[in-house]
């Protein structure tokens, strides 16, 4: 690798870290995101525990709590990634950012990763909440795998959010579609309800979603059911696939938005 290329890589990594920190600061000062990342998983966890206990279903409490935390993580990632582009559009910053020499992918990536990393806080709070209020035993079968699975799942969710949010660059009204994908991804990824309950053709779609493997990785590492290492590997693989698709889509959408002049539209 040439020195020039290494220099560019270092500059991009520095930009990503600074943009991530800046976005995190913005998010933790916005009550809506704090609600999405922290309070929402608590509401989901409470709802799940009351439903599972009331119905007498004997699922592992840790698995229920992790599903609830991931539901909140996905909600905040989906809304956060889309809102970031809408916010740039409203502040009339999308046009100059797209016009800048830095790739649009690098500009938008920190938004998605920041919203999903806020979900880590939600995950910890949810586990604490479930342990204190619902007597969930705080025991991890494979702690090392669990601590690897968390960042891998965060990045995977962030990349899926970014892939979906790519359309927001082109279509100003696409933000209204964001909420639409909240429940289907919960259902297809096996959050709270195992994907084995879905019809066979639908299960094939589930396996293409990184959150499915994120759920498997986290619950596998925490409860010890299934191979967490394999799930982490699949999660990483799908993240790379999403990355490639997002790069292609964003390039295409950016060109279309530039040529149709929709970047400044609200």
């Amino acid at each position, binding site marked *: 690798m040439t020195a020039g290329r290494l220099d560019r890589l270092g500059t991009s990594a520095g930009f990503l870290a600074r943009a991530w920190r800046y976005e995190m600061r913005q998010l933790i000062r916005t009550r809506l995101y704090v*609600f999405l990342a922290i309070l*929402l998983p608590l509401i989901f966890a409470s709802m799940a525990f009351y439903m599972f206990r009331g119905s007498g279903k004997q699922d592992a409490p840790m698995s229920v709590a992790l599903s609830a935390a991931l539901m909140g993580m996905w909600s905040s990632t989906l809304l956060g990634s889309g809102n970031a582009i809408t916010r740039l559009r409203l502040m009339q910053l999308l046009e100059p950012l797209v016009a800048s020499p830095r790739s649009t992918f690098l500009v938008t990536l920190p938004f998605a990763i920041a919203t999903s990393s806020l979900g880590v806080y939600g995950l910890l709070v949810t586990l604490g909440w479930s342990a204190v209020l619902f007597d969930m035993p705080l025991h991890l079968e494979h702690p090392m795998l669990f601590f690897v699975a968390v960042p891998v799942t965060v990045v995977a969710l962030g990349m899926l959010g970014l892939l979906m949010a790519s359309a927001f660059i082109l279509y100003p009204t696409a933000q209204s579609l964001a*909420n639409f994908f909240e429940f289907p991804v*919960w259902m297809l990824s096996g959050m709270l*309800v195992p994907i084995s309950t879905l019809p066979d053709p639908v299960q094939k779609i589930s396996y293409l979603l990184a959150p499915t493997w994120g759920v498997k990785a986290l619950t596998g590492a925490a409860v010890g059911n299934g191979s967490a290492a394999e799930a982490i590997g699949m999660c990483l693989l799908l993240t790379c696939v999403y990355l490639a698709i997002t790069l292609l889509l964003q390039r295409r959408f950016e060109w279309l938005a530039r040529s149709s002049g929709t970047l400044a539209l609200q």
Partner: protein
Amino acid sequence: MVGTLQRNAGPSVTWRLFFVAGWRSYLALFRWLRPSAFIPTVIGVPVVQLIWAVHLGRYLGAYPPDYYVVGNALHACAMAGLFAPAHSIQGERYGGTLTALLATPANRAVMFSGRVLPAVLTGAFTSAVMLGVGTALDWVHVPLGSLPMLGLTLLVTALSCSACGLVVGAVGLRTREATFLANVVLYSMLLLCGVNIPFAWLPGWLAAVGHAMPMSQGIEAARRVLSGAGGAPGLLCWELLKAAVLVLLALYLLQVLERGSREKASLDDV
């Protein structure tokens, strides 16, 4: 000779303020009601929520699908009911028109109540569509004879949710957190109002909070109407009472918070 003041005074302007201004404000929420923004928000999200809830309910196996269909269909009206009135005030702030709006001598009660009506109608329509989806998927059976009472139940529940949305909107006069509050209420309803969890499964104090929130009696009334059990009119009276209290609270808050926002010059904060 009739001047501008005389032409724009009296009952005609009150009706115009209530219906026309309320409707235009509602259209503006969806950037003049573009189907590409309206349909996914008002119909799309509740449909996928309904399918998810039935899927979860079937896995738990405690109640038949119609329990979840009715709960989530009624919860669907909360989306329009809470966010439309709340955003209609927040939207004025972001659009920079809130100051101009409050500088007019228009009757505040009429002006803001007019913004509730489209939300009530949309909310009731959304719930009806969700029940239609449930019927089409054979998850719920709606007897023809129950339709008038069911329609009334949907309207009363949507009114109650919209009144709560007006309270949230009133808070939005003073703060920028109307969206945050509307989200808190919307998701709390999912937990506390008997949408997916029967009150008997909740701790006593949480169930009491749920009973006091909008929509809980409406959901129970809809379940009774569909099952043919009695008691729905009494439950609807409770829901109407809650709506009336919330409307009065919203009008009071609008008056007080408008005065406070003028004094603190916070109307233009975005």
